[in-house]
């Protein structure tokens, strides 16, 4: 077990180093200057006029690992600066994105978990609402954006709405499923003990369905983090998604790549967090 962990870590490091190596080699060859020695001054001048300066290595292409490193260091060493609307530190951008995700996600929890409970408990509600859920669930959250912008008339709130609408479904479906499949035995125990409905909901059904509910929350959080980037690209203003779009407009690939890396790491962090929560409520039968 210990040795497996060690070996896998070693392999991971090796893969990372290989990727970095390939990247380094791929970007290093592009900047080799063409030999200028055998050109006459007229030819050189002509080449310069055509924008093909043979003496200067071309910049602004795909960044090298070293340039990337410098950018990463630059962002991480000063994450909280705020130089106006288009130039904010990475931590501020992330905070905006995470704030929107948290708000939309919490709103979704507030709706999906009680509603899922009701659907799971009542076969009538389940059947009545199922067609709506089935139609609404596969809609891309971004398709709601124009409607949200028109009705809400606030881009930031629209972003939160989009997060809400994409987080609601997995949680709703999982909560309903978890509640509906609580073992008959436990409900019978609660019944013979004359447990009140509220006590039954919180002390029997909720813990019994908690692992399923948390799975839904974990899926929802994953989707929400995917969607926030796209939503912010559309809406603009602040956030990590807007940062990516802004840096693309600046043609700063290093910044774009840095943002991609950060999105990945934060997404992993969120997933790990929900993984922990899931583990905490999981029981072995």
């Amino acid at each position, binding site marked *: 077990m210990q040795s497996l962990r060690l070996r896998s870590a070693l392999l991971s490091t090796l893969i990372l180093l290989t990727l970095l190596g390939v990247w380094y080699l791929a970007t290093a060859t592009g900047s080799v200057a063409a030999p200028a020695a055998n050109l006459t001054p007229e030819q050189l001048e002509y080449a310069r006029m055509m924008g093909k300066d043979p003496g200067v290595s071309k910049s602004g292409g795909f960044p090298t690992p070293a340039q990337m490193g410098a950018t990463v260091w630059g962002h991480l060493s000063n994450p909280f600066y705020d130089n106006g609307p288009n130039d904010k530190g990475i931590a501020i951008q992330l905070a905006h994105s995470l704030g929107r995700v948290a708000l939309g996600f919490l709103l979704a929890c507030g709706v999906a978990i009680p509603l899922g409970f009701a659907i799971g408990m009542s076969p009538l509600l389940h059947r009545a609402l199922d067609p709506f859920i089935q139609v609404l669930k596969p809609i891309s959250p971004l398709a709601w954006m124009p409607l949200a912008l028109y009705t809400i008339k606030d881009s930031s709130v629209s972003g939160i709405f989009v997060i809400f609408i994409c987080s609601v479904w997995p949680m709703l479906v999982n909560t309903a499923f978890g509640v509906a499949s609580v*073992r008959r*035995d*436990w409900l*019978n*125990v609660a*019944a*013979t*003990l*004359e*447990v009140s409905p509220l*006590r039954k909901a919180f*002390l*029997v059904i909720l*813990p*019994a369905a*908690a692992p399923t509910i948390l799975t839904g929350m974990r899926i929802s959080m994953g989707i929400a983090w995917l969607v926030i980037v796209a939503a912010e690209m559309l809406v603009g203003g602040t956030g990590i998604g807007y940062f990516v779009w802004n840096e693309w407009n600046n043609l700063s690939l290093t910044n774009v790549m840095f943002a991609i890396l950060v999105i990945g790491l934060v997404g992993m962090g969120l997933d790990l967090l929900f993984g922990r929560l899931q583990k905490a*409520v999981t*029981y*072995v*039968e």
Partner: protein
Amino acid sequence: MWSEVPAQGLAGAVQAKEFGVKDFLKIEQLGKTYQAGKPVFADVSFTLDRGEFICIIGHSGCGKTTILNVLAGLDQASAGHVFMDGREVVGPSLERGVVFQGHALMPWLTVRQNIAFAVKSRWPEWPAPKVNVHVEKYVAMVGLSPAIDRKPNALSGGMKQRVGIARAFAIAPKMLLLDEPFGALDALTRGTIQDELMGIVRQTQQTVFMITHDVDEAILLADRILLMSNGSEHEGIYTPGGIAEVVVNPLPRERSRAGLHHLDGYYALRNHIVDFLVTRARAH
């Protein structure tokens, strides 16, 4: 010999001497129908005196568990009524403790918490220390004090079933319903827990209705044994299942598992029940 037709007075008169309240639990013409015209069982009537231990024995599908669930209030009968202590049973109640076939412990709670959940349901006004003392007493009763803070998945099958029994006793119900509680246990564990259960029941004077598949278990524990037959179809005429016979256990009440087979009448009783199960329970 020890047989009587259901609801006949003879055995009742004998029982009355031994036990306190006669007809503490009264089942009248109970029936359950899933498929119209073909009730699983019909016209099931019997009574239990307070402090009496009754086992019901029969093949799978004869409706034993349904009867128990109706007594518990977890299921509705299609016909008939159940009265306990003069009042009709219409739903589940704390007055009837149930030990479920699959122990039905909540796996996210420890043994202590599982029993405390029941105790708090019974006496919501009790302060935590009182609940705790009560819980510990009943856990000790089934000999699980060392495992009190373990979760069910860390217990063996026998231990889990003991917790289920402790939980049922802890709420001090007026009667106990046991749905084949030892069905999933190995023979050795089963024997030990049978002895424990008998000790506790004798000590607490508990009224018990128990389902079993095990003839020896029924003979060891029960004062009376209800033999149940399956519903059957013969030449186009359907006969619903029901209680075919009530066997009064003639063995002395102070008996033990170890000495059971040395008692006079044991083999005759056993043969009678086995014969019933083999030849008559499932009419062809």
